[in-house]
């Protein structure tokens, strides 16, 4: 019964609240005090530097079969977690599109990435073809950045920034003595990302016939370290942007 009484009281409050509020607003409000004269903004609040790491494939979509015991979806998830940890240790805010072996549609990946408003988006892939690391940016041509962008070609507004980000990765990987191939491609969800975005595709290291497999932990360490160094450099460049 007490509960009912409380409900009655609450109902009365809800009924009377708009009336009381209306009563308060009925007389014309006093004019607000004049705002102080505008001061030049000295301290500019910069948005948070965030990075999105997208481990490709997952669930029934296993991607490429890299060896008898290694699938692309598993390797990129491992590297995604390691890269997230490395960047997190340097105080960089990281969002990942998947943390387990589950299927995540391209639409959801792009939604997650675009929601963050990230300064860099990295989508991780792996293949058995070629050597070293392949860096791909979207093949879309640059379009003006507007409030509304077509979903499937939104990356076009970031084409030039993505090329600069790719160049940052190229420098870091080359410094780590990992061969790099640069390219442009049509790839989902890369084409829908509204952030500077690069697809990083790992392949076995083949130098003068000596092949280092993707499963090699030392090779993975070098790649993760180089990618983290590139992101840190990108962060420094990003802070200097007007």
């Amino acid at each position, binding site marked *: 019964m007490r509960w009912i009484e409380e409900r009655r009281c609450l109902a009365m409050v809800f009924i009377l609240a708009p009336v009381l509020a209306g009563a308060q607003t009925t007389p014309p409000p006093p004019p607000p005090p004049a705002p102080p004269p505008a001061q030049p903004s000295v301290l500019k609040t910069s948005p948070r530097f965030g990075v999105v790491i997208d481990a490709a494939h997952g669930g029934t979509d296993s991607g490429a079969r890299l060896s008898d015991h290694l699938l692309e979806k598993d390797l990129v998830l491992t590297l995604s977690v390691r890269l997230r940890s490395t960047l997190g240790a340097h105080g960089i805010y990281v969002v990942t599109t998947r943390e387990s072996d589950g299927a995540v549609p391209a639409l959801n990946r792009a939604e997650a990435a675009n929601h963050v408003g990230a300064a860099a988006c990295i989508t991780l892939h792996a293949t058995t073809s*070629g050597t070293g690391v392949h860096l*791909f940016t979207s093949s879309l041509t640059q379009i003006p950045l507007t409030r509304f962008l077509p979903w499937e070609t939104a990356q076009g507004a970031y084409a030039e920034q993505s090329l600069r980000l790719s160049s940052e990765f190229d420098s870091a990987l080359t410094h780590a003595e990992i061969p790099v191939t640069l*390219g442009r491609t049509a790839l989902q969800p890369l084409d829908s990302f509204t952030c500077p975005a690069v697809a990083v*595709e790992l392949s076995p290291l083949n130098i003068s016939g000596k092949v280092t497999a993707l499963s090699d932990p030392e090779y993975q360490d070098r790649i993760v370290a180089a990618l983290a160094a590139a992101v840190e450099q990108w962060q420094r460049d990003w802070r200097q942007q007007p």
Partner: protein
Amino acid sequence: MISRGQRILFWALLVSSVVMAVVLLRMRERAMDRLLASAESMPLNPSAGRPAQNVTMMIANDMDGSLQPATQNLALPVDGNARAHVILQHLILDYARPNSKHPIAANKGVNGIFFMTLPLDPNQVIPGTEAIVDLSASFVAAHPSGIEPETLTLLSILGTLHANFPQISQVRFLVDGQQRDTLAGHADLTRVYLATDSPGVKHL
């Protein structure tokens, strides 16, 4: 007076003649069916009586992500669609060779290529010809998975078509007549590719 035995012999011969005629007609029909079937299943061989001509192929290399032009001397049919089909079949055949720098296992290759004159839509701004490349499911199944190998294959096809058919302005890809999301899990097959997307001899 004709004897009864002669009459029986006459009718027996007549019946057997009719039966033999029916059997021969049926055998002839079967022979014709076999001939037509074998003609349809024969590999595309347009070289009979046609002079060979130089064809430019844009050959992909996985190790450095490049496309390099290579010239081949091929006898080609007169029809544009058939000519493009033969050129792409030779390109894919090259990738199935043991020493290929962009290996793709042996497969059926391309089902066919169809040219359409643009613009189909009056509001469309790109003039020229659109080529629809119908890849076979066996080609897609045999293709290595990865952004680089898939992108190189598409650019190799685009570059080869553009080199030999400059009127082609854009290319669409189908797989066994149906639209498909990706070639082998990566490169987008739903979009329309511009023939000039291929970077030629430059890196990707």
